[in-house]
């Protein structure tokens, strides 16, 4: 018997005065949908605290779409922070949704957003707090159907035993189809196993329990998934793709939070997909093709979204907003519309090669805080290896434009541990930072009062599924630390600040990105030992992850740093974003030859295979130059 659906806020309320940030648990925000009559009930879960999960655009889009359907309701749930979780366990309060304060276990379906690999232990923590069995195999007939989707679903095998179904690609339409499928099957009284079979027939839906993992000579040690021959399931599940992106509502964020959240602004997705082809970038491969919204839609919906939400900042989001063929026009028109209202227009990060004078003037209105660029590698050779098609000239021009337009602080993102990286490339990072500082001082002046500073942030490459680097082993953490020290010693100017990603954190992320279905044992053991909120620096417990791995006879360095043969069948080959594996192999070989591949939105097709495989195409509103 499923847990009864009822409002249990009275159980939570007495705990509010005993926890940090009680505003996390309040609900009733402006724009939240309070009528949650169902009769079909979905709860979307972002398994982190409210202020981290609430800005997620994907959850907002699915929330709106499901609630717009007759007879379907969608609520939200975030993972309570540790203080609240402990109190809830102590007082026997189950995890509740926000809108209806109903037990999670009472819902027809629960949808997890997999924003990154480190959310894995939090998924288990969520299910445990909700009193729902951790694995699909252990669930009873009436239990909610546990769904997942999002950017990290591209190697969801370490969590595959948890999920009843995984939605691949754009979820706008498929979430509604999946909910309808569950609703209809329930109405017919279909048993749980039959519901899962039917879900596997909804395009873009991967049902892990209908696939067996086989380890043989053609695979890595993690094996590959094979559809059971007796089941009507596809051997490869291709992602869903909304080709007519402009026809989807541009204003997705309707809920205005009470508390400060990590991206406390109105976000509007101006385009989806990126075809630049950076070889380390999972999103660049999995969100193809490129689909732009028209400028007039962005401007009118942006203004509407600001007026109805009351935000004082709008962020034009996408994987690469300055690549929008009408970006300058959008910024110009939006700034004109919003003049005098104290509203700031921002863009998450800028590409070096498209940050022109006009762009510099239009971004951020009168306010000049910091500006972020991502050269990713310190030498032209290595930028060619990773296909980051920006040159020294692009870098110098962008830096000069930025300082001349009034910026004083520049942040540069780099990666360490890229394939073929040498000490010279690492030292190149220091030289680029120095060059940016030099340009700033040339433009603004040399004194301390000029306020010119450069910060560099150096991440560790974590090779991801469905990228040309998916076969590459991660750099050994000891070597990461040596290269970090090398860079640190090369930086002599105090106006350059440097920050690193922790090598141990990257190592665990690398292991979770590489492992197949057996990775679940590691995630479960780590969670049992006390790991949760692993994406929080303050909460990450490397010792517990190491202990969990050791208990399972695994060595994290060995797992993360292992290279796979180019011909091997990979643990994630049965899920596909439409990009051909042959294309990824070619791209890997071109990387080794230091040969770049152009952007198909600016030249001709480069043969990634997405368009013919999915029956879609790039939608560019103007002309990209």
């Amino acid at each position, binding site marked *: 018997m499923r847990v009864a659906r009822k409002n249990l806020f009275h159980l939570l309320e007495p705990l509010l005065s005993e926890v940090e940030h009680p505003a996390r648990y309040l609900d009733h925000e402006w724009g939240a949908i309070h009528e949650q009559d169902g009769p079909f009930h979905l709860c979307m879960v972002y398994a982190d605290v409210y202020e981290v999960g609430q800005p997620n655009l994907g959850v907002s889009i699915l929330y709106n779409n499901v609630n717009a359907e007759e007879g379907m309701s969608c609520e939200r749930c975030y993972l309570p922070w540790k203080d609240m979780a402990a109190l809830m366990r102590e007082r026997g309060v189950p995890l509740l949704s926000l809108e209806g304060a109903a037990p999670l276990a009472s819902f027809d379906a629960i949808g997890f957003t997999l924003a990154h690999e480190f959310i894995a232990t939090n998924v288990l923590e969520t299910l445990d707090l909700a009193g729902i069995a951790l694995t699909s195999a252990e669930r009873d007939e009436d239990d909610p159907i546990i769904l997942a989707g999002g950017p990290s679903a591209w190697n969801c095998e370490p969590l595959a035993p948890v999920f009843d179904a995984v939605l691949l690609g754009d979820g706008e339409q498929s979430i509604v189809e999946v909910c309808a499928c569950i609703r209809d099957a329930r109405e017919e009284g279909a048993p749980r196993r039959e519901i899962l079979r039917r879900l596997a027939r909804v395009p873009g839906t991967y049902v892990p329990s209908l696939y067996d993992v086989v380890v043989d000579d053609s695979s890595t040690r993690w094996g590959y998934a094979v559809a059971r021959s007796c089941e009507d399931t596809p051997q490869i599940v291709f992602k869903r793709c909304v080709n007519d992106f402009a026809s989807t509502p541009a204003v997705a964020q309707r809920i205005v939070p009470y508390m400060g959240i990590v991206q406390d602004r109105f976000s509007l997705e101006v385009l989806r997909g990126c075809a630049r082809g950076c070889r380390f970038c999972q999103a660049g491969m999995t969100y193809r093709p490129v689909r732009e919204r028209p400028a007039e839609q962005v401007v009118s919906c942006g203004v509407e979204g600001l007026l109805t939400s009351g935000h004082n900042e709008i962020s034009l989001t996408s994987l690469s907003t300055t690549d929008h063929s009408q970006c300058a026009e959008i910024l110009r028109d939006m700034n004109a519309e919003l003049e005098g209202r104290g509203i700031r227009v921002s863009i998450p990060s800028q590409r070096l090669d498209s940050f022109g004078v006009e762009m510099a003037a239009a971004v951020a209105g009168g306010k000049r805080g910091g500006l972020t660029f991502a050269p990713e590698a310190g030498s032209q050779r290595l930028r060619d290896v990773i296909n980051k098609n920006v040159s020294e000239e692009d870098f110098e021009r962008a830096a000069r434009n930025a300082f001349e337009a*009034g910026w004083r602080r520049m942040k540069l993102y780099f990666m360490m541990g890229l394939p073929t990286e040498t000490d010279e490339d690492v030292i190149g990072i220091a030289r680029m930072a120095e060059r940016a500082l030099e340009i700033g001082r040339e433009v603004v002046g040399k004194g301390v009062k000029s306020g010119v500073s450069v910060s560099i942030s150096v991440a560790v490459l974590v090779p991801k599924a469905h990228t040309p680097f998916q076969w590459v082993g991660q750099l050994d953490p000891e070597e990461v630390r040596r290269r970090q020290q090398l860079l640190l010693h090369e930086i002599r100017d105090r106006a350059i600040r440097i920050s690193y990603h922790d090598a141990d954190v990257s190592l665990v992320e690398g292991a979770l990105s590489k492992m197949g279905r057996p990775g679940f044992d590691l995630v479960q053991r780590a969670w049992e030992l006390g790991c949760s909120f692993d994406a929080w620096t303050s909460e990450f417990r490397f010792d517990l992850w190491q202990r969990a791995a050791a208990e399972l006879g695994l060595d994290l360095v060995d797992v993360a740093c292992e290279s796979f043969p180019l011909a091997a069948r990979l643990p994630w080959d049965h899920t596909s974003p439409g990009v051909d594996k042959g294309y990824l192999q070619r791209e890997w070989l071109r990387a080794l030859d230091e040969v770049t591949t152009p952007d198909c939105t600016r030249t001709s097709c480069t043969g990634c295979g997405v368009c013919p495989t999915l029956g879609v195409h790039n939608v560019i509103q103007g002309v990209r130059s």
Partner: protein
Amino acid sequence: MSRTQVQPVKARPQDLPVKADLARLRVAYRKDSRLAYLGHLDLIATIERCVRRAGLPFSIGNGFARRMRIQFSSALPVGASSACEYFDLRLDESVDPDEALGALRGATPRALEPFRATYVPGRLPALEAWLDRASWEIELVGCGATAAELLDAVELVRGRGTLTYLRGEKEKRVDVTSTLVSLAVEEEEGGLHVNLETRSSNAGALRPQVLLSAALGEIGCELPAATRIRRCAQRHEEDGRLVEPFGPFGKTGETSVS
């Protein structure tokens, strides 16, 4: 060498409006039900968004950050509700206060509903410092002490003059002699009902739960988990008289100190 200086606004400084000359709309609102748990900074952000949604012609400061010109009454403790919170909003142009109130009500969550809006003199001091008297009602549900015991304990705390307490990890001090105006306790079913009158100044403000925790501590009791605190009035104290938030502000309209 080229250098571009960016002005936050296009107008010359001498052409910008003087803040005190701008229309100053005082709005009273309540804060209750679950929004009692909204912290002060989150409350400020929420009200600012309500003002924007209401479409009022709010004025923006000339500083780097281009902030809305709005001031709030003093912060409520998280978890305390209120029947009488206030904000002062500077407008670039005067709008009918009833229309402004209507627009605000249509753009504000019910638990923060505004119920009165009136223009007040532009040169009155800032709200937070000006409203220096507060009346509180506290329900101590499940409190083990009697009314007489609590009154005696409060007198003991007042007698010591200064009260030291921890706020997070910081040690704070408050002068009870000057900040505690009066206290009345009634016994009712299931606990105690307290009416408390406090005064705030630059030296500090007395939080009801700080006073009651210290007093109950004197008699070996703890502040009950189910304590409900409500601010029921805020006023300005001037020359021994109390001025209501919406005035009248002249000598003739002042009410006498009770």
